[in-house]
């Protein structure tokens, strides 16, 4: 048991594992928190406030999100640069999925750069969040996002981001399962792929509905799904509204 492992081997395995945990796991938590907006302003603002009270928050943010994200995205670009796509000559589903995994990855690099600068750091001039990001402003969190999402272009960009993330993560889970030798056989891979496609569709649906929940109560669903709506409403805003 003394197999030498090359640098490339270890980096690839680290790239695969960071995509699942912590980044994939974080995406589930993120979509869950966003979905609280379905129950109204107070529920969402409370959820943002709860995140602010996570112990060792800075440590969790740096080692749980930022460092894995920076590694995964930059090394992902190096991996994408190696590709020589040939989908038109070899027109097979898995070959297109291979191309699509790299295309969504590159799109997500720019989307996440925008998203983090926008809502985490409030550093995109001209947007509602400029100088007033969601992070650190729990009491205004819902209002800030709502004001941005009233711009259809921004809302569409975020929905595209959710779609790309949902696919990249779900297919990434399939890639992880085959690359680590968990799912081996042809049939097993086919069923695992169906499961991942279903997961992608589910994540996209939930994430998109959460985004619409900021501009319309309960998002795209009938309001009966969000019966707690009334009691969650803030009657006396504890911070002056900006809009």
């Amino acid at each position, binding site marked *: 048991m003394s*197999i030498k492992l*090359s640098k490339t081997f270890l980096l690839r395995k680290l790239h695969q594992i960071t995509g699942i945990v912590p980044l994939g796991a974080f995406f589930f938590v993120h979509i869950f928190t966003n979905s609280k907006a379905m129950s109204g302003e107070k529920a969402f603002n409370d959820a943002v406030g709860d995140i602010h009270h996570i112990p060792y928050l800075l440590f969790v943010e740096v080692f749980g999100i930022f460092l894995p994200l920076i590694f995964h995205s930059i090394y992902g670009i190096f991996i994408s640069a190696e590709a*020589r796509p040939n989908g038109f000559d070899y027109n*097979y589903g898995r070959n297109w999925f291979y191309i699509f995994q790299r295309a969504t990855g590159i799109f997500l690099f720019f989307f996440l750069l925008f998203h983090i600068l926008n809502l985490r750091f409030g550093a995109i001039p001209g947007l509602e969040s400029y100088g007033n990001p969601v992070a650190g402003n729990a009491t205004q969190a819902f209002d800030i996002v709502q004001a941005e999402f009233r711009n259809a272009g921004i809302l569409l960009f975020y929905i595209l981001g959710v779609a790309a993330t949902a696919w990249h993560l779900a297919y990434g889970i399939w890639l992880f399962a085959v690359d680590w030798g968990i799912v081996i056989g042809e049939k097993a891979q086919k069923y695992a792929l169906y499961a991942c496609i279903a997961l992608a569709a589910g994540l996209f649906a939930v994430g998109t509905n959460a985004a619409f929940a900021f501009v319309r109560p309960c998002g795209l669903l009938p309001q009966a799904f969000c019966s707690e709506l009334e009691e969650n409403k803030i009657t006396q805003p504890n911070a002056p509204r900006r809009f």
Partner: protein
Amino acid sequence: MSNSNEFKEKKRLTNPPQTVDIKIQRRDKLGENAYWETFTIPYRRNLNVISVLMDIRKTPVTKEGKQTTPPVWDMSCLEQVCGICTMVINGRVRQSCSALIDDLLVSDGGNTITLEPMSKFPNVRDLKVDRTRMFEHLKQVNAWIELDGTHDLGPGPTMSQETAQERYAYSRCMTCGCCLEACPQYHDDNYIGPQAIAQARYQNMHPTGKITIDERLEGLTQEDGITNCGNAQNCIQVCPMGIPLTRAIYETNRDITVNALFGWLRK
């Protein structure tokens, strides 16, 4: 061949073209620029790409009437067993001996057939490539079984019927290079490729070969190793011998996860 294909072929062959254009990518020698030449040959039934190339070799005159050198290509068995005549025909890698002109005309339409050398190997001349690197890959993964000495080793170990059948499939590899040519990850010899991984798996499955599994896995965890696989799975689609290349990759992935990645937990 399915009924619909037979029908299409008949439909086509009731009105076959008078001539067929063969567009060939030429190169005078390694490192020089490639250029294209088109030749026109009279159509007759049951031509294949090799017989077309032989026709062109007899009178190497291009469509425009220019006298040129006869195109160079490799061929040997002419029955899709040796793999040496592999080239890119109408954008797809395959053996030229089993590429029938009638089928190509029906499936791809038009009267032009494009021939290119494989793009992922050094192009020696015209349609001839140097596939030495595939043999280097076999050396890298120790794709053989160690036998010590010439003395009588007694009867070999027994293996299950399933193992024997899977190993037989891997034994059919003819090192043609189709899998590497179609692989979107493989270029400039940056990846060891499905062929060598399948041959490593072939020897790892053998009861005697299993003894030296670590050496083969070490060959596969190098910089150009198995983790460069992008799971596009083109290899299994183009393999002319129907070798379960993806099974070899994923079974080996499991061996590597157990023995290499978590092997230190057994120390």
